[in-house]
């Protein structure tokens, strides 16, 4: 039985909007998605699942909630999609509230369960189909919907205005020059090797990460640029709220900006979902099998410049560290070995969590979960006790998180479970450890 405290969470984006729905609209919307938008994949997955329950123990929320059967991935599909199919869309408000709680809060679409399903059924795809239905019904947690609204109106996640964007870059350039003379953030340089793109929260709340990257680019002598206008944000919360039209617009603009700048590749900051949106979910919605220009995640780029000797490490972090494998770049890109190479290059006491690599547990923050905001935080924390135990067992004082969602999610877990560690992006450690050229 699901936790009653979590069942009672009130979210205006969910509950107020459910109150406005009519049974006809619910039925029509569900059936439209099931029969017109979804096709072979959904049908095959619904047909093939033999209800074996082998996916249960893959899921951090099932494990963290003392093996509550309602938190097994298959149960989450049963209580949402299977019922919608069985009742041919005739479901009520209470059902939708619970479906929203499950689809938006209890599944981070991390795809760990697909590695436990013998058939390789993409369970997160089915949960995303539920989110799509809820989105078309206007039933989306308020905080998450706000980020989607921001994407739709400003083409970035955090309502950053054009003048704020350029002003922030100039401010960060100035800060970076204080650290390393001659550092620049070149804007709109056509034909550069690299376009660097970031997620909306960087200019809004973590601007120093942009300066860190500018310093790293300066040290290795990279030929890089950033766009001065919309398309600079590679994040995509619309992908997670089920607003795939807006997701497609955001991704298309990002790639169009890169194409206009005629760059050879796009390097992106330390974020997981943005990688997924730009390389995978976005192109898929747009009908492309892959992005038009190669996309390189920061971890891959750090690996490349450290391995080739262009970036030299002068000193190492000595406190015990562990690393959170972000699902979207590990299960989503196989970057776990490169990540460990980078971490070992800058830290002398690295301790792995168990399990790790592709078998890591999700941070329960990605997949749009943390973006559902404060009403749901307690429930989110309860669903990832296993992560707190994993971190605690390593004895590490520092958790390295090369992903924004992991970073915020792990910070929450450390606070909630009083683990007494701190978290850091790799770029923050690099600027402390690399050999800077003489000014």
């Amino acid at each position: 039985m699901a936790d009653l405290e979590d069942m009672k969470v009130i979210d205006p984006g969910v509950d107020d909007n459910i109150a406005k729905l009519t049974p006809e609209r619910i039925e029509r919307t569900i059936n439209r998605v099931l029969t017109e938008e979804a096709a072979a994949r959904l049908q095959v997955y619904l047909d093939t699942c033999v209800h074996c329950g082998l996916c249960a123990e893959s899921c951090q929320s099932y494990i963290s909630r003392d093996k509550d059967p309602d938190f097994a991935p298959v149960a989450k599909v049963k209580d949402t999609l299977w019922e919608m199919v069985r009742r041919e869309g005739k479901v009520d408000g209470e059902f939708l509230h619970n479906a929203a709680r499950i689809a938006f809060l209890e599944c981070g679409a991390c795809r760990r369960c697909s590695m436990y399903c013998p058939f390789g059924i993409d369970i997160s795809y089915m949960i995303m189909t539920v989110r799509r239905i809820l989105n078309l019904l206007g039933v989306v947690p308020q905080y998450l919907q706000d980020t989607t609204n921001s994407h739709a109106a400003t083409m970035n996640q955090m309502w950053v205005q054009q003048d704020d964007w350029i002003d922030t870059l100039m401010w960060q350039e100035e800060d970076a020059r204080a650290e390393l003379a001659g550092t620049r953030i070149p804007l709109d340089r056509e034909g550069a090797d690299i376009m660097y793109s970031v997620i909306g929260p960087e200019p809004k709340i973590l601007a120093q990460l942009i300066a860190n990257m500018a310093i790293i680019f300066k040290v290795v002598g990279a030929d890089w640029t950033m766009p001065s206008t919309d398309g600079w944000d590679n994040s995509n919360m619309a992908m997670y709220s089920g607003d795939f039209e807006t997701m497609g617009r955001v991704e298309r603009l990002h790639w169009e900006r890169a194409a206009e700048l005629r760059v050879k590749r796009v390097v992106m900051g330390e974020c997981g979902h943005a990688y997924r949106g730009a390389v995978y979910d976005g192109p898929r919605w747009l009908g492309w099998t892959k992005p038009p220009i190669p996309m390189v995640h920061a971890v891959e780029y750090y690996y490349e410049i450290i391995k080739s000797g262009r970036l030299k490490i002068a000193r190492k972090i000595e406190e015990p560290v562990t690393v959170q494998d972000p699902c979207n770049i590990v299960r989503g890109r196989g970057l776990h070995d490169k990540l460990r190479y980078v971490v070992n290059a800058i830290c002398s006491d690295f301790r792995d969590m168990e399990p790790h690599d592709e078998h890591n547990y999700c941070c329960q923050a990605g997949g749009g979960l943390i973006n559902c905001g404060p009403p749901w935080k307690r429930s989110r924390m309860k669903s990832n006790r296993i992560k707190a135990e994993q971190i605690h067992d390593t004895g590490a004082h520092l958790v390295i998180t090369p992903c924004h969602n992991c970073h915020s999610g792990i910070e929450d877990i450390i606070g909630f479970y009083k683990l007494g560690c701190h978290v850091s992006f790799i770029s923050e450690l690099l600027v402390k450890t690399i050999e800077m050229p003489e000014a």
Partner: protein
Amino acid sequence: MVEFVSGPLVWIAFVGFFGGLLYRFVTMAKLAKRERVVIPTLSAKYGLRSLAHWVLPFGGASTRKRPLFTLVSFAFHVCLIVTPLFVMGHTVLFQQAWGVRWWSLPDGVADVMTLIVIFGAVFFMVRRLVKPEVRNVSYPSDFVIALLVAAPFATGFIAAQQWLPYRTMIIIHAFTGALWLLAIPWTRLVHMLWFPFTRAYMGSEFGAVRHSRDW
């Protein structure tokens, strides 16, 4: 009656089984074209790589965590497919009907394999009842399907042992077998048809798109 079950009924079962599978496959292939990226994503290399890990016992990390389940499941499925094709009683019928001869299992081996299938079906049903995460997602139809699969094996075994009147058992055996084959395309037993595709698709996504492993 025996003439009917060893003649027309076999044809009905085979035509229904293969025809049903073909129909499902063709309609699904059409439906798959509507999803613009499904077919282009499929990669032979990564699809087969994933399949190889999952059709071999203990090839997937999660299968190593549950050795008993893995052993029972693999033994069950192997015996389920191999026994009906090679049991002496069937090969004789194939030879009489079509004049084709193929290798057949010694009686004792076929008996053991049949018992493995029956044991496997019972194991799966008990598991459904005792494991909360499985019971939570089990419907009456799940038990009906397990019984449907076990039925031709149980009746065939009883007939072979001649514990009950042979002719009656053979007739029941043939009907349950036909029912089983006819049900495959239209029930969750269709995982027999879709398994290679779902696995290959996930393997392709993990390998070709995501550069990682799905086992």
